[in-house]
C-alpha cells in the first residue's frame, strides 16, 4: 500500500473526489463509435450474441435500454433494476496523461481542491482518476500511460475492480517534469495498442500542432476513438500579466524570456486562439472528440458536462 492521508485513506484515493464521483454516478462513458467488445449492451459490439456472466444489479435510470430491466426483481420489489454482467462490454480505454513540465503550471485563477490551486497536471490526474473509476465501474477495461518525452509508464487496460487501484497508485506517484514530445509518444502508442478502443488524451498539447494532428490521425487510422481533453490554465488563455516579467520555461528551467507582457499580449492570445482553433478544426476533420478544459472550471463539472453531452449525442 502507498502513503495514507490524515484520515487513514490511501493517498491515491484523494484522486477520487466523492463529490465529483457523485455527479458522474449516473453517467456512463459510452463509446460513440464502434468498439471491439463482446457485450451487446451499452456498447455496440461487432461480436454480437456472445454470452456474459451476471455480475450485479443496478437501479434503472431513464435512458437505460428497457430490455435490460430485470423483470423478476421488479416482480418482487416493484422496482426497476438493470442486470449487469461482468463482461458487459469489451470497451478498452487507454488514458494518456501528459506528465511533461508544462503540465505543472498552476495558475492563480485555477479551481481549488482541498484549498489548493490545481495545476494542469493535477487537474489531469483528477480527470484520469475519475474517468478510470467511471470506466472500471462500468466494467470497461481501462489502462493508463503517462509520458513526457517518452512513455514513463504504461498500464494496459483491465476491467477488474482492483485495476483501479493500480491506476490510481500510478497516477498518484506521477510527477510532472521534463519536456514534451507528444507526436512521438502518440505514434508509439498507436503502434502498441492493437485492439481498437477509446484513447483518452489529457494534455495541454504544447507541441508542434501539425505533428500532433498527424499523430492523432495515426490513432484514427488504427480505428481508435479519441477523446482529446485539452487542459489549459486560465492564465494561458487570458495572459493577465502587466508588469515586466521573467518567464521561465517549466520544461527547460534555463530557458527564460524577459519582456513587457503587454507588448506581446495580443499577439500571444491570437497565436493561442489560432492554435486552439486549428486544433479544433483538425479534430473535427478526424472525428476526434475535442474537449477544452480550463483549470478555472472545476474538473468534475467539466467532466459531468462532457459526459452528459456525450450521452445525449450518442442516444
Amino acid at each position, binding site marked *: 500500500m502507498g502513503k495514507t492521508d490524515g484520515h487513514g485513506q490511501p493517498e491515491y484515493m484523494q484522486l477520487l473526489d466523492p463529490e465529483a464521483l457523485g455527479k458522474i454516478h449516473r453517467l456512463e462513458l459510452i463509446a460513440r463509435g464502434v468498439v471491439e467488445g463482446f457485450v451487446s449492451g451499452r456498447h455496440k459490439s461487432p461480436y454480437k450474441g456472445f454470452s456474459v456472466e451476471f455480475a450485479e444489479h443496478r437501479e434503472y435510470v431513464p435512458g437505460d435500454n428497457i430490455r435490460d430491466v430485470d423483470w423478476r426483481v421488479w416482480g418482487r420489489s416493484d422496482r426497476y433494476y438493470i442486470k449487469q454482467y461482468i463482461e458487459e462490454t469489451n470497451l478498452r480505454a487507454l488514458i494518456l496523461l501528459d506528465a511533461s513540465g508544462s503540465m505543472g503550471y498552476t495558475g492563480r485563477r485555477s479551481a481549488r481542491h482541498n484549498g489548493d490551486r490545481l495545476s494542469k497536471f493535477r487537474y489531469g490526474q483528477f480527470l484520469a482518476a475519475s474517468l478510470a473509476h467511471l470506466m472500471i465501474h462500468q466494467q470497461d477495461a481501462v489502462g493508463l500511460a503517462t509520458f513526457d518525452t517518452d512513455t514513463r509508464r504504461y498500464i494496459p487496460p483491465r476491467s477488474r475492480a482492483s485495476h483501479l487501484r493500480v491506476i490510481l497508485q500510478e497516477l498518484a506517484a506521477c510527477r510532472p517534469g521534463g519536456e514534451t514530445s507528444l507526436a512521438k509518444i502518440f505514434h508509439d502508442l498507436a503502434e502498441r495498442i492493437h485492439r481498437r478502443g477509446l484513447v483518452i488524451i489529457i494534455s495541454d498539447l504544447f507541441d508542434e500542432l501539425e505533428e500532433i494532428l498527424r499523430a492523432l490521425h495515426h490513432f484514427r487510422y488504427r480505428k481508435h476513438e479519441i477523446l482529446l481533453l485539452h487542459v489549459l490554465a486560465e492564465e494561458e488563455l487570458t495572459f493577465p500579466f502587466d508588469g515586466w516579467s521573467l518567464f521561465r520555461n517549466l520544461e527547460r528551467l534555463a530557458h527564460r524570456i524577459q519582456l513587457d507582457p503587454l507588448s506581446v499580449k495580443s499577439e500571444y492570445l491570437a497565436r493561442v486562439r489560432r492554435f486552439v482553433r486549428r486544433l479544433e478544426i483538425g479534430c473535427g476533420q478526424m472525428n476526434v472528440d475535442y474537449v477544452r*478544459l480550463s483549470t478555472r472550471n472545476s474538473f468534475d463539472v467539466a467532466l459531468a458536462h462532457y459526459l452528459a453531452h456525450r450521452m445525449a449525442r450518442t442516444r
Partner: protein
Amino acid sequence: MTFLNAIMLLGLAAVAIPIIIHILNRRRAQLVDWAAMQFLEESLTSRSRRILIEEILLMLLRCLLLGMLAFALARPFLRTGRLLVADTADAQDIAIVLDGSLSMTLESAGASSFQRAADEARQVLEVCRAGDAVSVVLAGPTAQPVVATPLSDLDAVRRELEGLRPAGGSMDVPRALNEAVRSLAAGSNLAKKIILITDGHKIGWDLDGRKRWAFLAEEAKESLPAAPVVIVRTLQIPKQWRNVCVGGLRLARAVVGTDRPVRISVTVANTGVGDLEPEGVRLAVDGVELEARLPTAGGQARPTGRIAEGASATVEFDHHFKASGPHVVSAAVLCPDDLPGDNQALHVVNVLKRLPVLVIAGERSTRPLGGDADFLQIALAPPSEERPDPAENLIEPKLVVASDVASVKDFDEYSVVVLADVPRLPASAAERLARYVQGGGGVLIAPGQKADKDFYSGWTGPDGKRITGCRLVEFIDLPVADGAEQRFVHVAPNTIDHPALKLLADPSVSDLASAQIKRRWVLASDDEPGVSVGAAMDNAEPYLIQRQAALGFVLTLAVPLDREFSDLPVHECYLPMVHELVYYLAAPSQPPMNIQPGQQIAFPIPGQISHGDVAEVFTPDGQRHAAELRQRRPDAHRGWLATFSHTAAAGLYRLALPDKALGELATRPAVARNADGVGGVPFVVPGNPEESKLLTLAPEDYARAAEFVNLKRAETLSELTHAIKGGVPGSEIWRVLAVLCAALLLAEILTTRAIALRRQVHLARPVAFGTDQADVEAFRERARQLLQTPSPRKEVPAK
C-alpha cells in the same frame, strides 16, 4: 544663452529617470514559471524589432519631455547682444552725445543718420528710470551743450532733442566727451554714463592725440566720483552710397586786390562708391553766378567729366573782384547724391583796394635805379597800360631810407615792411618793428653787403628770440677773374618749399633758376620751432628763411633784391616773386574771414562805435547771437574789435554791425542786409573734406580709445537700451519651451496610444475555453472549414 534659474538645470538629471525606471522594471521583473513558452517565443520573435523601436521612441520622448521641462524651469535667456553694463539699482546721470558731423546727414531708408541718432536718444530717454538725469551734447567740431546739466525732467530733454540739427563739419570726439564729463560733473547721481551715438566715422576721434585722451581721462577722474562708462552706439551706414563733394575751394593768392583777377580752384572729389559724372561745378560770388568761359549745354556750370571712385577733379575759374571788401564765394558741384551737405563750399575773400608797403632802403642814390630798393619799388607798383595810374595798383609802396626810419610813427599802418640792404636799425625802431611782427605784421629782410651781421644776429623780439630766425654768417662776394668764368650760384627750384615761391618752382614757366647770384650772405637758420628754410641755392646754402613770430612772419633772403647782387631784377620772375612775398607777408594782417571751427571771429571795426551799439552774429542755423565789442588793445587808440566765439557749426556766419561801424562796407553786396534783415560781415567756417570720406573706425581704434576711457560698444539699439537699464538684451524662451513640453507630452500620449492600438491590448480578448464557453470565432471558423472540406470520414486514409 544664460539661465535665470540655473539651479533647475540640475533637473536635467531627470532625463535619466525613464531609463532608470526601465532598468529597474527589468531588474524587478516578476519571475513567472510558464508553460506556453512556444507562443510567447513566437510572439516575441515576430514583434521584437517593432517592440524595440517603440520602446526607444517612447523613452526618447519621455527623456526629452523631462529634459525640456527642467530646461524651461531653468528659465533660459537668449541673448541678442552682450552685457555691456552691469545692472544698478541706483539712479544715474547720463550724458547723451549726438554726433552732429556732416556725415550724419547721410540718408538711408528715408532718414538721415542724425535723425536715427536722435530717435535712439529718445529711446534712451524711454528706458530711463525715475531719478535718472540726462544731459545732451551736440558734437560737431566743437561740443555744444544742448542740455548742459543733467535734467530729471525727461520731457524737457525730449523737447531739446526735437529741434536739434547737425552741426556739420567733423565731430571732435575728445572735446565732446570732455563736455559730457563736465555736464556729468554737475549731476548729483553717483552712477555716470556717457552715450555717444555716432556713425563711427573715424575723422574727429584724434586717436593719435594721446595727450588729449589722457587729459580727458584725467578730467573724468578728477571731476567725477567714478570713471563714467562710455557707451558708443555705432549706427549702421549703407554699404552702397554715392557722394561727390567740393573738396577744396582755393584762391591763388592769400591777398586779393581789386587790381587784377585771381584764379579760383574748385576741387571735386568722388568719395562714394562707384564712378560718378557730375553735371558740373557752379561758382558764385555774392550770390551772382560767374560766367563760365566754356559754356556747356546744361547751363553755365563748368564740366568736371567722369570722376572715378576715390578720384578728384579740379575746375578753375578766373575772377576779377571789382569792389573791395568781403565777398562770399560759393562753389557747388551739381550732382544728386546721398550726402548733399558737402556739395557746396564757401569761402570769404576780403578784397583789398590798397596794400601799403613800407620799403626801408639802406641809402638813397642819386643815380637812376642806383638805390638799394629802386628795382623793388618799381616791381611793387609797376606801371602798366591797364593801370596807367600807379594809384590803381593794389600795393602802395612807400620808400624811406634807414636814416629816416624814426619818422615812421606807426608801422601798423603798413601791411608789410621791407628792409632792403639796411645796415642796421636804431634800437627803438628795431623794437617797434619786433612788436609789429608780433601783432601780425610782415617783414621782408634783404640784407646787403653793408648789413651789420651783429645787429641782425642779435635782433631779438620781446620773447628773446631772434627776429630773423637766423644768423648772418658771412658775406660772400665772388671775385671777378679775368678770362675765367664766374662761378655763380642759383636758386634751386627743387628746394622751394615756401608757399609764396611755389608759383616759381616750375622751371618750365619760371626763370628763377637762371638768375645768377653774384653776392650773397651765408645764413645759418636757428634750430627753433617756427623757423624754416623756404628755399635753398644750388650750393645748399639757404636762400629764404622764414620765422613766425607770434602772429606775423619775417622772411630773410640771402640775396638782396637789387641788381648789384644778382641779375634777378631783370628776370621775369622778379615781379611775381616780390608780389607773392608781399602778399604772403600781408596775409596775417588781414582779419581772418575763413576760420576753423571753434576759432574766434575777431573783426576790426573800420567805422565808428558809440556807447550802446550792439553787434550780433547770424549763425548758419539761422540763430542770432550777441557778439562782443571790445577795444583792439587796452592801451591803444586804434579802434574796436567785434568778437564771437561760438563757431562750432560749419557754414556762413554774418557779423551784423551798425552801418556807421561798417563804414563803406555797409553798402557791399556781401554785407548788406537782405529782406529778412539778415546781413553783416561774412565769415565762413569750412567743413572738413575728410568728413565726406566716411572712414569708419576699426575695432583696434576702439581699443585705442578704450585705453583711456571705459569704452563699451553697443552694436544695436537693443544693446544700447539694455546698457542703460543695466541688463542684457534678449528674451526668455520659457514660453516656447512650455509649448514644446506640451507638444512632447501630447506626442508621448499619442505615441503610447498608437502603440497600444497597434498592440491591440484593448482588443486582446481571452481565448474562449472550457465547456461552458463558446468561442464564436472558433465556431465560425470551424463552420467554414466544415463547409469547405470533404467529409471527415473521407479524410481518414484507407488502410
